[in-house]
């Protein structure tokens, strides 16, 4: 497609364009070459120097308020920073500390908690993981069963967390635990705890993904003592607290970057393999490029609405459904473009770099499962946007 994400449908002001140029130059000069355009996952320890560099330059937390060490940047500038890092092929920092728990600590933490946790999230010294899912609690998160019992000034935690990205690298976990098993509705009995992963009684086991790397882990809690001072928000307030994420996060996780890259690679690859000569291939490429254009327009539109008081509730689920589906279908086409090599476990060399088409296909599974499946997001639209009724019993 002849368009550049920087210009197409973007709302960049003159100031934004200046910022974009500044970021582009700085990233080109400072992104570690060894980390750029990597096909395999970069684990947190290897990412730390790059995180540190962004931190030292003051660009690690564009969405945090200045008083907490962030940039206090507009959403447009947050997106620009993200886009320019991605454009250079450099990795973006992991979101669990910076985007997930950081903003919640800012919104709901005590002064002591803020002073204790925020600086080490910014500097990258502390790696965080999110302890929400369990073997029996996925889409039905409110059914989670990891139990925390308050005994004086400590909780005692017993249970099992699963599908925890970076669980085996994390220094800290923010976890939703059950503190009231009798509560009705069930989500009224859940509390948010910040758990030191070096506490006695925690066993961590990495889980290998389809893609072949150990992206996530499971954790067993056996009488783990967690100080009451590490409770975030009040007792049984965990569900509400977990909902306090700023929401700007969806503009980085939901960015159309995967489809943009895959469709470009599919063109290039198809010309090498001859798939380009098939009318069917080109028809499908055209259909996906048209969908990409529409999604890009929606993305810019949604960014413009974000933070407005009447911003529609549908933004997050639409980005999740449309963006996830588009990226997965684009990865499918990339595999088709590779022809017989579509099942190869090895890299394919392209003029613009190497690509492992199957690995990309595997990686894209995450988009429709992690942090809310496509089906859960369709439920949200059906019930909360379209007003469709629940089944009568």
């Amino acid at each position: 497609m002849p368009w550049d994400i920087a210009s197409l449908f973007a709302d960049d002001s003159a100031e934004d364009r200046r910022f974009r140029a500044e970021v582009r130059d700085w990233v080109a000069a400072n992104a570690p070459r060894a980390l750029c355009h990597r096909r395999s996952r970069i684990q947190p320890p290897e990412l730390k120097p790059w995180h540190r560099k962004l931190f030292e330059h003051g660009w690690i937390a564009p969405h945090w308020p200045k008083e907490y060490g962030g940039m206090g940047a507009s959403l447009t500038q947050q997106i620009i920073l993200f886009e320019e890092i991605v454009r250079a092929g450099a990795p973006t920092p992991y979101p669990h500390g910076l985007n997930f728990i950081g903003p919640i600590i800012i919104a709901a933490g005590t002064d002591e908690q803020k002073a204790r946790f925020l600086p080490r999230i910014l500097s990258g010294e502390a790696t965080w993981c999110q302890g929400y899912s369990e073997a029996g609690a996925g889409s039905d998160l409110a059914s989670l069963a990891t139990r925390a019992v308050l005994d004086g000034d400590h909780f005692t935690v017993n249970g099992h967390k699963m599908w925890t990205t970076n669980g085996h690298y994390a220094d800290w976990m923010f976890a939703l635990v059950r503190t009231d098993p009798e509560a009705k509705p069930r989500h009224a009995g859940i509390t948010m705890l910040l758990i030191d992963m070096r506490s006695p009684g925690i066993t961590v086991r990495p889980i290998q993904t389809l893609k072949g790397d150990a992206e996530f882990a499971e954790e067993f809690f056996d009488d783990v003592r967690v100080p009451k001072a590490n409770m975030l928000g009040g007792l049984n307030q965990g569900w509400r607290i977990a909902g306090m994420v700023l929401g700007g996060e969806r503009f980085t996780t939901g960015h159309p970057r995967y489809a943009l890259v895959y469709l470009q690679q599919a063109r290039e690859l198809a010309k090498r393999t001859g798939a380009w000569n098939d009318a069917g291939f080109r028809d499908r490429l055209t259909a996906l490029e048209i969908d990409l254009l529409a999604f890009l327009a929606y993305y810019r539109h949604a960014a413009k609405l974000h933070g407005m008081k009447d911003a529609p509730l549908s933004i997050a689920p639409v980005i999740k459904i449309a963006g996830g589906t588009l990226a997965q279908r684009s990865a499918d086409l990339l595999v088709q473009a590779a022809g017989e090599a579509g099942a190869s476990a090895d890299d394919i060399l392209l003029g613009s770099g190497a690509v492992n088409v199957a690995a990309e296909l595997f990686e894209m599974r995450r988009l429709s499962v992690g942090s809310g499946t496509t089906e859960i997001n369709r439920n949200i639209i059906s019930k909360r946007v379209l007003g469709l009724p629940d089944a009568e019993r």
Partner: protein
Amino acid sequence: MDELLSAEQRQLRDSAGKLCADRGGAKRARALRDAGRDFDVEAWQAVRDAGWLGMLVPEDRGGLGLGAVELYIVLEQAGRQVLMTPHLETIAAGWLLAATQASSPVLPPLLAGERIVVPALDADGWAFRRAGTMRVPAFASSADDFVIETGQGLGLLPNRHDAVTTNVDGSHAGTLLATERATIIARDNEARALAAKLGDLLALGSAIELLGLCESAMTLALEHVKTRRQFGQPLGSFQALQHRLADNFVDLELNRSLLHRICLAWDAGTAVPAMIAAAKARAVRVAAEVMRNALQLHGAIGYTDEHDIGTLWKHALALSARYGNELTQAARFARLTAEET
């Protein structure tokens, strides 16, 4: 996109919404069709009085001097209410006549709603042709003049009411048998540039009206599944149906943003033909899906002529076929973006 409208634009939306609700509606479109007419005289008077016909014409030429975003606002409402007037065609022709170097004597009567001018050009600015003859996709009975592409450039051809055929929504298409009596209004490069832009405007406008039609179809489908009960439940409580409606909603949200962004780009002078080709192709594809689902959810009543959902579908078919259907526009998009890589 409503969140981003100015106070004036909201006012325009509300007044256009009222006009279309008063003078449009599926029932009226059916009555018109049954009477063998594709032109609603009463609605036309209201459209003229509201100043729509000159909305893209500069104020010093007697128009309102508005832009593509205002066009979007008005056409979305017209689509929602199946307004059976040549408003899009005349707005586009008015824009054309005001954009040519030579001032046209046809512009004042066009703005007064007295002379209906309908383009017979496709989205690439070429005449619609079938088996060597030139076709007019809509309003072939109502038009006084057609804008056509000739060997000398763009011309205006008086309507001789040659060979008129009827579309499924009651609109009339026609064949132009003799084209030599056209009055040339633009030549050479000017003609080519204007013809291409005119085609874009018609493709964009028809895509916006399709969006409005789909919005109405969604409203009907949602009302139906919330009230209709089977198996002791409202239909809308079944998850299989909920998820299909959710997917339709997502697709329409994307089209709304795409069309709105293109209109902003049009007004800023940064719109490119490939964007418009993409928008029309996607509008047609999504309309087919939304209509299919809405018809299905209505069950047997959706197969009757008296229900509005079928009328919406038929008008959507007509708007889909004219000014480039899905495959024509997708092929055009592919052509326009082929040089890349």
